């Protein structure tokens, strides 16, 4: 039974893929239908999953004591705790988001937004140091690297190029004092060019990612989808 559902899923997946790619030819109703279907599924999937995996087993079940199991010898797995009802407080606080729709109470929304922003800012601030400090530390590199009392030219060049890039890009974004003179302008200009090379690398990797998606879809159509159709037809 399961394999039949899987087969149907694969066939439908193939049709959906072709429908979405049909946009490359031109805008059409077939594409529009599957686009709306996808948005609908994505929008519906998350609330169901949040309820099934989190709200029900972690909040509501223990709150109402549904997680307490009775054993045949008359004992129970654990005593239900009324402390779980305290979850209602943050839940009600979170529901204040919906005061947005009542003009008289809409000021309460600011409390929730303020709390969310404060928590997010605190978390980001705390995470900043363990994330960025090691990177700053590693930026201090020796310009001449010795290996077995001989200069390692390749690593030395890498480090010099790294430091030059770092300083020139930082200098490009230094607007506190006016840049004057040929050397200063050239240094900033080099920083701009190095950034453009970096953006080129970013763009190249984006193309690579998009192509990987195309490759996976073509592979799916050429193998899984064709096999599924052949199996269904018999």
């Amino acid at each position, binding site marked *: 039974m399961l394999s039949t559902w899987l087969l149907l899923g694969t066939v439908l997946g193939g049709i959906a893929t072709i429908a979405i790619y049909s946009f490359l030819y031109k805008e059409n109703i077939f594409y529009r239908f599957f686009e709306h279907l996808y948005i609908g599924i994505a929008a519906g999937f998350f609330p169901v999953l949040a309820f099934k995996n989190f709200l029900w087993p972690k909040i509501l079940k223990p709150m109402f004591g549904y997680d307490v199991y009775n054993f045949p010898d008359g004992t129970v797995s654990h005593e239900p705790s009324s402390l779980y009802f305290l979850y209602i407080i943050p839940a009600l606080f979170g529901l204040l988001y919906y005061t947005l729709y009542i003009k008289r109470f809409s000021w309460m929304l600011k409390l929730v937004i303020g709390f969310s922003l404060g928590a997010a800012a605190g978390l980001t601030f705390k995470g900043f140091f363990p994330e960025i400090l090691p990177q700053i530390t590693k930026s201090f590199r020796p310009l001449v690297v010795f290996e077995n009392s001989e200069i390692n030219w390749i690593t030395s060049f890498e480090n010099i190029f790294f430091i030059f890039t770092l300083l020139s890009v930082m200098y490009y974004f230094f607007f506190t004092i006016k840049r004057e003179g040929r050397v200063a302008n050239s240094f900033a200009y080099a920083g701009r060019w190095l950034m453009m090379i970096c953006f080129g690398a970013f763009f190249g990797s984006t193309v690579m*990612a998009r192509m990987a998606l195309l490759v996976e879809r073509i592979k799916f159509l050429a193998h899984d989808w064709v096999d599924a159709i052949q199996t269904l037809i018999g």
Partner: protein
Amino acid sequence: MKEVTERRLIYLFVILIVAFPILLDYSIPPARMKAGQSLYDKIDTLKVNDGEFAFVALDFGPGTQAENLPQSDSIVEHLFRKRIPVVLFSQYFLAEGFLKSLPESVAKRLNRETGENWEYGKDWVNIGYRPGSGILIQNLAKADKFIEVFKEDANGSSLSEFKLFKNSKGLESVKILTEFTGLVGVFDSYIQFFQKKNYVPIFGHGCTSITIPEAYIYLDSGQIDGLLEGLAGAAWYSHLLDKNYRKNNMEDIQITNTALGVSHLAIIFLIILGNIIMFVRRRRNNA
């Protein structure tokens, strides 16, 4: 109208050129990836004691499965072959399906090849999707016992019942963390919080091609110990498994990687061709 036709021809050309290696099952050996090799060596030499395990975070959905799925498949296979217990988890709700299907398919594949068994609860446990982001990861790092944070697996079974967690402690039990995602924010939460003052597990990362330039920053600073760069990284890792473990080579991912390489060549060709046409047209107009 002419521009629309030209665009359609380019799409058709790219699709045909990508389909060529896939339809003909044609593959070339992947390029050596230094960061992938480093992760392979770390896992290959890893030794775990009772109660210790690998923590595999699959933070991806169908949108990036083309790159993240082959990466995680290869890593889980390597961990299974080394008999390192695996705990799977996700902060991304669309990963639910992969958390279940991936270890099952790897276990089945290895069973067919070796005749050995990999059991749920002993060799792997699926914690499932959990919301909470950075706060959850902080709790995990602070907890004295790993199972106190999660308590249950994805099916609602108590984690304390599983053999895998019998002698497990807190973060110290995680010998290696491998995280697969295309979401920079999720990856950041592990970099920032998945560590203790005196203990940082080995950190391997599988990223999508888009996030490769950013991931290199963390690799360069030593915050991650190994990296699988998109499909190319996965192909190299799979090649290493072919060479050192597998009885039959897994051609599938090498074919996919070849198709990706061919598509790159096609795009480079189109960029050069487009520039030539532009110069010719400009010269003709000036004349």
